[in-house]
């Protein structure tokens, strides 16, 4: 018998992990149009910051504050040294960020060594809901995903910075003429995106651990989430995209092998991109 409570909870959990993992990319790639192939590496840095913080005796919650700041700074270094020269050259941005991904991955090995590091899980026992005992940490992750979505949506929709950021992204010359400091808006938006990737790293570390390739697993999936969901549609796009890519793969794996499920979902994503290039929720 297929136990629906598990399917629903798993689909929800898989979706929320991808929301957290892809949100930073939804800003840097979805909104700014910067193809950031270092997104996975930034997640890895977040995971290692979580390791360093918890290893120093502090709690994982402290890591949730430290990781975004540290990775935002890494994003700042990337943006100031290279990315801001390439805003009008999308292909070169893509290549440069892939270069950064390699450099970051190797620097982590230099600093932390090659072996996988462990990050403790704050919760020990699962909790029983609807007859299925569910891990508390995954429930927390779902709440975190929802919270992050709302916060980023509100930030970019209503706050002064958010409005300016979207204006700059849509037409940086015009915004520049109207007196917005375009360069600093780009910098801050990129840093927020990187910070969110860092937070994602810290968030997944307790259930995945930290090793030099942790973030790489999320790279292609995150891009699919943003593209399939629809660039420029922060809330609906990320939610929809994560649901399709993460959720459906989890649900499908109840009826088929996980390898088959993942292959089918990837193929499905490619078909969606082909039929609706602007994404499910994007476009006019």
């Amino acid at each position, binding site marked *: 018998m297929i136990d629906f409570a598990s399917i629903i909870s798993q689909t929800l959990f898989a979706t929320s992990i991808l929301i957290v993992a892809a949100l930073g990319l939804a800003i840097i790639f979805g909104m700014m149009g910067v*193809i950031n192939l270092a997104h996975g590496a930034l997640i890895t840095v977040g995971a290692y910051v979580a390791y360093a913080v918890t290893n120093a005796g502090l709690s994982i919650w402290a890591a949730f504050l430290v990781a975004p700041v540290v990775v935002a700074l890494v994003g700042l270094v990337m943006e100031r040294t*290279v990315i801001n*020269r*390439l805003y009008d050259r*999308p*292909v*070169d941005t*893509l*290549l*440069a960020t*892939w*270069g*950064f*991904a*390699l*450099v970051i*991955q*190797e*620097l982590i*090995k*230099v600093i932390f060594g*090659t072996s996988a590091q462990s990050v403790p899980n704050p919760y020990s026992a699962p909790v029983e809901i609807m007859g299925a005992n569910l891990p508390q940490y995954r429930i927390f992750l779902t709440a975190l995903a929802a919270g992050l979505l709302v916060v980023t949506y509100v930030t970019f929709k209503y706050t002064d910075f958010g409005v300016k950021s979207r204006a700059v992204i849509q037409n940086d010359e015009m915004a520049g003429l109207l007196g917005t400091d375009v360069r600093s808006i780009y910098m801050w938006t990129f840093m927020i995106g990187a910070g969110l990737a860092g937070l994602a790293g810290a968030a997944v570390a307790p259930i995945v651990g930290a090793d030099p390739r942790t973030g790489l697993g999320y790279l*292609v999936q995150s*891009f*699919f989430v943003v*593209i399939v969901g629809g660039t420029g549609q922060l809330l609906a796009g990320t939610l929809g995209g994560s649901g399709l890519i993460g959720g459906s793969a989890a649900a499908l794996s109840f009826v088929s*092998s996980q*390898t088959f499920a*993942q*292959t089918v979902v*990837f*193929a499905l*994503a*490619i078909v969606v*991109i*082909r*039929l609706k*290039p602007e994404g499910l929720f994007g476009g006019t």
Partner: protein
Amino acid sequence: MSYIDRTKVAFGDASGSTKVILTGAVIGFLLPAVLSPYFAFLAAQYYLFALLALSLGLLWGYVGILSFGQAAFFGLGAYIMAWSFQYMFVPGINPAYVALVLAPLVNGAIAGVLGLFLFYSDVKDVYFVIITLALSVILEQLAVSVTSIFGGFNGIYLPRMAVSIPGVFNYQLSNDRLFYYVTLLALVGGYLVCRRIVRSDFGETLLAIKENEARTKSLGYNTARYKTLVFMVAGALAGVAGALYATLAQFVSPPVTGFVLSTEVVIWVAVGGRGLLLGAITGGILINAASTVLSSLVADRYILILGLIFIAVVVAFRKGVVGYVADRYDWGEKL
């Protein structure tokens, strides 16, 4: 003027690319005399990686399509060679010949289907990068788990190919110096095919598409068809390179189709020179030779060095090595 003068004159004012490919071919031809079998094996391997890089160089340099999935075609070519030995598709005929015909055909067909599916829509070029990246991830995953067909994680064995004329002679190329010439032939042949394409009206249209696709469409060109055709040629070239690589290494396993090799090819072409066929070839040889040397010296720091070089080239040295040379000396046609 005697024959020699004429060649001198012709050589003197030949375009940069002609000079380079001629000297390259001559040096390449004489090289095995000084190379030990090991270095002949290495050079053969570099030539095949250069042929793979050439397939991306043609796509990216001449029609502006950046594919992150050329390794998928390379790997498929390798598996076709392995299957050809395993299943002897056409009994009685040298399985390597069968594979060297099948690999480009099958890859071309698959590239054609992909092209029809992706180019005949307004999928943005950038999305094409992500899709081709995903395709090489999918193929690698299938190759690992579908053990019955792909031999799975442990891979498939195949012997070194033989050069043969049925009934006349059959000589197995276990001597690496001999196999070296097969790969040199494949690389120079591949280059001449690309050169032929690029210098034709078809090639001129490709450059037009790369520079201004809207204008080219409104002059009556079905740009999607051109992009699909050149994508098929690139797939075929990568397939031949993969097929020869399989019988050179005598072993095929999933990473040969996968994500890591796909991203490395892009680095080779970007550093070598993304705008020129010879740039891609140089990148394919130069970076692989450097990685052999560097990885023996600094083992795991080599990727860090490569990453830094790659960023520097992309930001400040966009034309790449050969591109830079072509600018400084009158290179003539961009080949």
